[in-house]
């Protein structure tokens, strides 16, 4: 078992506390283009998590010292709203949000064709309005949709998903109780068409077999979320068809 042996996370019938199967993810809803001022935007509801992402740019990178002569820089700002959790979060950047901003930017750099926009900056603002475990993954999913909505060229979409271990069992998409009292958490950023991994973090211990099961679950979930992302993007223009002249 884990460090919190007295907390039961799996029911006697083998299902999880919220009634999900071990390889079942929470419900995901995505809307694209919700913010009129932004070049691209997205709203993602993943279980009880809600994230909003806005993309601005490409624009001239300021200050000049952050400019790269051969590519664009991606400036990600991940932030949790003070009211997103039951304990109020002190507004502003903290160590955690700084870390998540950095890893998200690095994950996005591997899909965005940054070499097309030398000396520029692409601003990605992720705001978590409601948090219930796995917000970095939700933020990444939202950022991909917002970037595509902004018309920024990308090699592929990117999907954030997590798997983990509770009571010695590998499960997909941890909720709050499972994240807090479980044994391991493995968030990943997956390029759904190629199956490449652009982002991976691990909290806790997993054996090789358990890791492989996590990977399998994550890949499966990534395909499902990818379909929802594409649907959201296309739905926005579905009634606006005609194209060309």
């Amino acid at each position, binding site marked *: 078992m884990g460090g919190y042996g007295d907390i039961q996370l799996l029911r006697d019938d083998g299902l999880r506390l919220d009634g999900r199967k071990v390889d079942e993810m929470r419900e995901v809803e995505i809307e694209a283009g919700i913010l009129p001022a932004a070049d691209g935007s997205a709203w993602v509801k993943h279980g009880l998590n809600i994230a909003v992402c806005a993309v601005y740019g490409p624009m*001239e990178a300021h200050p000049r010292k952050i400019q790269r002569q051969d590519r664009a820089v991606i400036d990600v700002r991940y932030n949790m709203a003070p009211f997103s959790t039951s304990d109020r979060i002190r507004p502003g950047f903290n160590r955690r949000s700084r870390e998540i901003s950095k890893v998200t930017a690095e994950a996005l750099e591997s899909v965005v064709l940054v070499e097309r926009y030398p000396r520029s900056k692409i601003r990605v603002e992720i705001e978590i309005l409601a948090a219930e475990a796995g917000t970095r993954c939700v933020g990444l999913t939202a950022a991909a949709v917002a970037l*595509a909505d902004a*018309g920024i060229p990308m*090699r592929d979409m990117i999907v954030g998903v997590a798997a983990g271990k509770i009571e010695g069992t590998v499960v997909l998409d941890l909720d709050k109780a499972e994240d807090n009292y479980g044994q391991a958490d493995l968030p990943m950023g997956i*390029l759904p068409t190629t199956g490449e991994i652009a982002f991976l973090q691990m909290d806790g211990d997993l054996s090789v077999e358990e890791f492989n099961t996590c990977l399998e679950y994550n890949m499966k979930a990534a395909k499902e979320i990818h379909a929802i992302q594409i649907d959201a993007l296309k739905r926005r223009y579905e*009634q606006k068809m*005609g194209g*060309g*002249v």
Partner: protein
Amino acid sequence: MSVSVMGAELRLVAPGEAIGAASGVRAGTGALIQGSEIIATRLGWVQQLNGVLSVDPVNAAYMPRSGDLVIGVVESVRNNLWFADVNGPFNGLLPMSLAPWKVEFGAAREQMDVGDVMLARVQEVDEAHNVVLTMKGVGLRRLKEGVMSKISMNLISRLRGENDQTLRALKEASDCRIIVAENGRVWVDGGPEGTAFMRKVIDLLREQGHMANFSQSLETMMNDAPGGVA
């Protein structure tokens, strides 16, 4: 209206989606060869023309190319050059040598100050995306009066129409001078009625520019135009 109803050639794709085999065709804008397939890099409609497979994006930032006609807004003035916002990621630079006036060193402000609007052409764009503008050419000038509005890049061709047909009809209907610049800015100069009409047209374009029935809606609007020409 769904994609299939509009015909097979209009397929909406998202980044990463395979749009065809890489053999025999080249990848154009918004497309990339990955292995044996061509994938889309942008959200947009697939187009195949002369053996080039490309994606016409539904939303894109303006990327200046040499020869583009642009409407710029002066952002800052130096002793012998102007910097203009051309609606792209970088400001355009207009040196004194490419301006239509002869002014003394330090007196650039007398011809064009911050906030003034100019009609210019892109002289050149280098690999680091430095944009040089020119105002030497027929019709290139400072725009002293009129109304400027912004439309998204993919609607430019819709406003112009095939061989500028729509634009010509609009000019006649509104009795205004209209310039649709490559950088998504539209300049309208004319009487108050014509300007108000054009404002309505641009609002319609923003709302329904993507739809198949846009031309019909526009025609209905033009029947009620001050010029009265359909």
